[in-house]
């Protein structure tokens, strides 16, 4: 005799209570779903989309914001910009308008954690400069490149801070200190002026003053304006054009070691002018964590609403299909009742079918979404970032949707009277 741990109680009539074993529910459910595979697949579609959208949105935003954080760390996190404070004391009276000290580069570069630092400003004193490869060119003629090109003053430290790729050399502290008439050309302007080689010591004429080209910069990490213009040493510029004008004040760019930027931002104004540190405003890079969080909140909020709508559509789809299935299978319900099924067994079967439908939809959706995130990350050379806390329970969301969707149809199925159903 078979030994049973839990012997079922018997009714007064001697019959054992009807029973629908878990294993039987499972196989009946799978049989029910595979009867009409096409319909089951279509029904799943809503859940696939909903759960897929949910996982993909979370995965893509975490991947993208991971990238934002990464880029940020590399470039922006090592940059501090210092400008002159724009308060009345500076603007109103030119007596107080003290720009950066002459030894600004040295003052900042002394700080621990600074890689390089320098000031720069556009020179806009007398309308547009006349820039040409030969002397005696009139403004506005075709040989004058001043219309599209700019004239800039920069300290030697700035040229290092923008991390350029250069042909030739950059002007250095010697040129700057002596006010030498040298310049660095942006690649775009050099092409325009027909200057391709620098070993012939070519010159550029700015307002008929000759500047020897020491180098051509092809690319920069920051201050891309310099690529289209002539850059001369800041002392030379002060000598020829005077100090930086009030409408285009000098700015300082500090490149720091990784992680030093916030500290340097605090120290820079004091180092520049200990007696009046409020003349300067140092802008540190934004906090990467804050930046990342902002991005995540903005994007995910919107897309999760869309994912939710998909899930609701999926739920309606499953509810509808299950309801139609109940109507179609009325005779089967009657038969099962005649074969001993209780109303709750009927309900359990339809509920299990809709839940499994939702679960499979959720699994498929999660798989597709994970693949999508991976493909997007691969094509963009990003690192895919997927939070297990969202990926692993995602199929269960599908199951929950299926369960909810099946509630009403299965209650209806349970209420079907067997004698009515069998008359069909």
């Amino acid at each position: 005799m078979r030994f049973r741990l839990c012997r079922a109680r018997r009714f007064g009539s001697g019959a054992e209570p009807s029973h629908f074993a878990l294993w039987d529910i499972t196989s009946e459910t799978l049989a029910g779903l595979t009867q009409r595979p096409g319909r089951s697949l279509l029904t799943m579609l809503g859940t696939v989309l909903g759960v897929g959208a949910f996982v993909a949105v979370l995965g893509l935003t975490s991947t993208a914001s991971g990238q934002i954080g990464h880029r940020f760390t590399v470039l922006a996190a090592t940059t501090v910009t210092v400008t002159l404070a724009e308060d009345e004391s500076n603007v109103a009276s030119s007596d107080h308008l003290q720009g950066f000290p002459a030894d600004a580069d040295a003052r900042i570069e002394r700080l621990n954690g600074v890689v390089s630092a320098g000031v720069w400003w556009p020179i806009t004193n007398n309308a547009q400069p006349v820039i040409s490869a030969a002397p005696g060119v009139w403004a506005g003629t075709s040989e004058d490149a001043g219309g599209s090109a700019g004239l800039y003053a920069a300290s030697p430290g700035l040229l290092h801070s923008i991390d350029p790729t250069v042909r030739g050399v950059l002007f250095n502290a010697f040129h700057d200190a002596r006010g030498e008439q040298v310049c660095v050309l942006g690649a775009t302007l050099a092409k325009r002026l027909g200057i391709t080689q620098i070993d012939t010591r070519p010159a550029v004429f700015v307002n008929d003053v000759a500047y020897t080209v020491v180098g051509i910069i092809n690319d920069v990490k920051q201050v891309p304006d310099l690529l289209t213009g002539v850059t001369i040493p800041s002392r030379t510029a002060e000598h020829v054009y005077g100090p930086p004008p009030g409408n285009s004040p000098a700015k300082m760019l500090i490149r720091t070691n990784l992680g030093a930027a916030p500290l340097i931002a605090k120290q820079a104004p004091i180092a520049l002018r200990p007696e009046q540190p409020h003349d300067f405003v140092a802008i540190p890079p934004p906090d990467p964590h804050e930046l990342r969080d902002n991005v995540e909140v903005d994007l995910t909020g919107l897309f999760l609403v869309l994912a939710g709508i998909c899930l609701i559509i999926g739920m309606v789809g499953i509810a509808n299909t299950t309801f139609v299935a109940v109507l179609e299978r009325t005779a089967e319900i009657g038969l099962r009742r005649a074969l001993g099924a209780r109303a709750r067994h009927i309900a359990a079967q339809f509920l299990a079918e809709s839940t499994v439908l939702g679960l499979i939809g959720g699994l498929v959706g999660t798989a597709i979404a994970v693949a999508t995130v991976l493909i997007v990350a691969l094509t963009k050379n990003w690192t895919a970032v997927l939070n297990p806390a969202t990926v692993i329970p995602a199929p269960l969301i599908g199951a929950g949707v299926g369960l909810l969707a099946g509630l009403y149809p299965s209650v209806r199925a349970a209420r079907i009277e067997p004698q009515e159903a069998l008359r069909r």
Partner: protein
Amino acid sequence: MTAAITLHGITRTFPGPPPIEALRGIDLTVPRGRYLAIMGPSGAGKSTLMNVLGLLDRPTDGVYELDGVDVAGIGEAERSAVRGQRIGFVFQAFHLLPHRSALENVMLAQLYNRSPRSKRAMRSRRVLELVGLTHRLHALPATMSGGERQRVAIARAMVNEPSLLLCDEPTGNLDSATADAVLGVLAEVHTSGQTIVVITHDPQVAARAERTVVIRDGLLHASEHAEAP
């Protein structure tokens, strides 16, 4: 030895205006192993009596003893259990699941009554053999003839060794030659000692039974045909 079925003053009234008395005091005793036919014109209460006998419906009043135990007033859970274990149904419309093979359709009858899974196929195969369908075990209903389908249904009804085999117009959807064959199967089942109640309006079907009673206006009458002793 108790009778398979004893009915005492069974009534069934459908409420609501106006109330309809479908059964008006049915008294009936079916000894074990008896083959009984219940005949009657449509609207006489055949279906209602069939539902009461099959525990698909509850009588308004009266006593219904199945195997000597009163089942007229039992609750839903117990009625489902008794239905599944003590009564085998054969329907006019066969009611086979279209996507399941003959064997799987028979096994369905063992789904709810705690039969061990491992033994279901073996038992089902045995009853299918009994009704002569050994060669059609894995055929789908759509590929079977009407007679074969009804034999699958008989096998399904028999697989739990019920106290009562309840047939509702078992040949209603069959031509006369096939009907004869199916009635032959029923007769064979009967010879093994099975209690059978057939509800029909067809005198030819009733003629195969040992005894026939006629229901008219909710009351049973002895048949005007000669009765087997």
